């Protein structure tokens, strides 16, 4: 009786300690959804996979700016005026255009605001987009594959002998 209590208590406390340690290890916890439902069922699989459109065709600022950029509604429209104009999702797109509104995409891959992430430096270093963004070409709906945590960044920086000076990313 007493022993069972003791063993039980031991297991509970070890479990608690382990959980606490795990939480501490993971701090700050990331609670963003990894694959949120987007306002438009845009398929990277169709665009980048089946049709083989290069990432930089739409995310055109990545080689020269900190932000990769997402295509303007006008850019989407200019193709879809001719390509599959009858599909329901494309109609939604045109509706956004007609309303003069941007599409409220939901951000999937995000780093905190105190992190400075220049896309162009990574493109310049010939880092494949997939290293951070995953195999986008196979994703029907985009989802985050990398942890995007600091340790994850540091590992990669160490592997590639990139700067690990704090001020590289935290300005």
């Amino acid at each position, binding site marked *: 009786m007493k022993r069972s209590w003791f063993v039980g208590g031991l297991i509970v406390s070890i479990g608690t300690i382990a959980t606490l340690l795990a939480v501490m290890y993971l701090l700050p916890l990331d609670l963003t959804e990894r694959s949120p439902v987007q306002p438009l069922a845009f398929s990277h699989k169709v665009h980048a996979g089946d049709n083989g459109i290069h990432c930089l065709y739409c995310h055109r600022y990545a080689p020269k700016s900190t932000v990769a950029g997402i295509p303007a509604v006008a850019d989407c429209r200019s193709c879809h005026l001719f390509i599959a104009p009858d599909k329901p999702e494309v109609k939604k797109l045109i509706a956004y255009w007609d309303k003069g509104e941007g599409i409220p995409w939901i951000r999937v891959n995000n780093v905190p605001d105190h992190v*400075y992430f*220049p896309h162009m430096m990574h493109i310049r270093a010939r880092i494949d987009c997939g290293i951070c963004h995953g195999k986008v070409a196979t994703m029907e709906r985009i989802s985050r594959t990398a942890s995007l945590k600091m340790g994850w960044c540091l590992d990669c920086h160490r592997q590639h002998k990139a700067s690990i*000076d704090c*001020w590289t990313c*935290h300005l």
Partner: protein
Amino acid sequence: MEKLTSPYKWGMVIDLDRCTGCGACVVACQAENNVGICEKQEIAEGRNMHWLRIERFWVGEYPDVRVRFLPVMCQHCQDAPCEPVCPVYASYHNPDGLNGQVYNRCVGTRYCGNNCPYAVRVFNFYPHEWPKPLDNQLSPDITVRARGVMEKCSFCIQRIRRAKEESSAEGRTIQDGEIQPACAQTCPAEAMTFGNLADPASRAARLARSPRRFHLLEHLGTHPSVVYLKGGGREHV
């Protein structure tokens, strides 16, 4: 944190003979670096947020009174007292010889602020607000600091970063004069010269060899990267 070999050692030369004390650098610094707006109450309590201040000293008595101006920002010491005391490496030494400050790492012990002999580290006692639409002026290049963290002059690290990115795209090193911190850029009298002290040919390095050179609180052995040039002969001719 790792000591990498860097071709740069950023430094600044401040010619006190040129400095008129006009305060343009103070506003430039504040504008460039998202430094919080300090209400009267805050400054009265000694919680001024300016990263760069112009010290004004009165010497002598009327009518033989003189004024000395001394712009003081982070001296980016090579043996910086602030660095070893930070328990979390929020204050650290950068490979380019700068004293880094990582805001999101700072826990706010304020130990670095105590140990900085130049009193140039400022602490966010208050949560700073930019009443709309004043927040539009905030620069996207650097973090807006929260309350409870230390901050200080970084020699406009965002400008250094930009120049590094541009020069690396062109496969060259940064040229002399390519980077100017906001204060040096705006100084009407050109009293501030920023440059690579590791390059003996740079303008800053040449000025830093002037016989008028001195470091602030040199006896403490902090080896600052800011070199002052003495104001020449402000006495009767």
